[in-house]
């Protein structure tokens, strides 16, 4: 991993169009400002990891976990 030291208001560039600026440092909390094209998704890693975990869990669902699924959904769905 590349490790860089930056002070408040200093920036690093990733490629030509992603800028990450240290906005504030207070105790053990660092606030970062990110400028990136909208086509690049920027999110906290925990959110990514949560979705990744949920995908993995959902990939283990089997046919017999879901007996008569559609029939029941038709009864329960507000649109049915």
């Amino acid at each position: 991993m590349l490790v860089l030291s930056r002070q408040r208001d200093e920036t690093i560039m990733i490629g030509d169009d992603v800028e990450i600026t240290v906005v504030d440092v207070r105790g053990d909390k660092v606030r970062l400002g990110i400028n990136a094209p909208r086509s690049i998704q920027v999110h906290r890693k925990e959110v990514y990891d949560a979705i990744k975990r949920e995908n993995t869990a959902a990939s283990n669902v089997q046919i017999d976990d879901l007996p008569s699924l559609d029939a029941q959904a038709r009864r329960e769905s507000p649109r049915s």
Partner: protein
Amino acid sequence: MNIETTRFGTVTVADDRVMDFPKGLLGFSKYRHYVLIESGDTTGKGTAQESYFWWLQSVDVPELAFIVTDPSLFVSGYSVPVHADQLASMGIASMDEAQVFVIVNKIDQTLTGNLQGPLVVNVQERRGEQLVLSDRRFTTRVPLMEVPAAIAAPVVAVQAPVESAVAVA
């Protein structure tokens, strides 16, 4: 084309039914190609009733499949906020040209939907992407419905290949 699956045996689908997820799904980035299989067909009855759930079956990996649903069938007020640049990168002008699915999981007897990581599919080009929403109202496990405890069925019946499985739009 024929697709080998562990859940449905060999499934035959038209080539133009294959969807491309160029980035894969989160945690499954290597696998790009999927088809939708109506969950109703897993009964082998081949009825033409409208489905609420589909299997998103990997073309590349026989055992990789997800249950997906249209979240608007279960959750009101759910929309996927997508910026114009992001729409453009998906090849669509507006969300009217997209179909939104969420992946379904089963937690005990509750079916949950991953509303934080919706799948957005460009219907015309059959190209999709899993988005990550920062809106904290929508979590990875939003309850959709309860299902009754499964009645123990002979394993043989579950493993029988379903020849009538058909991919849908």
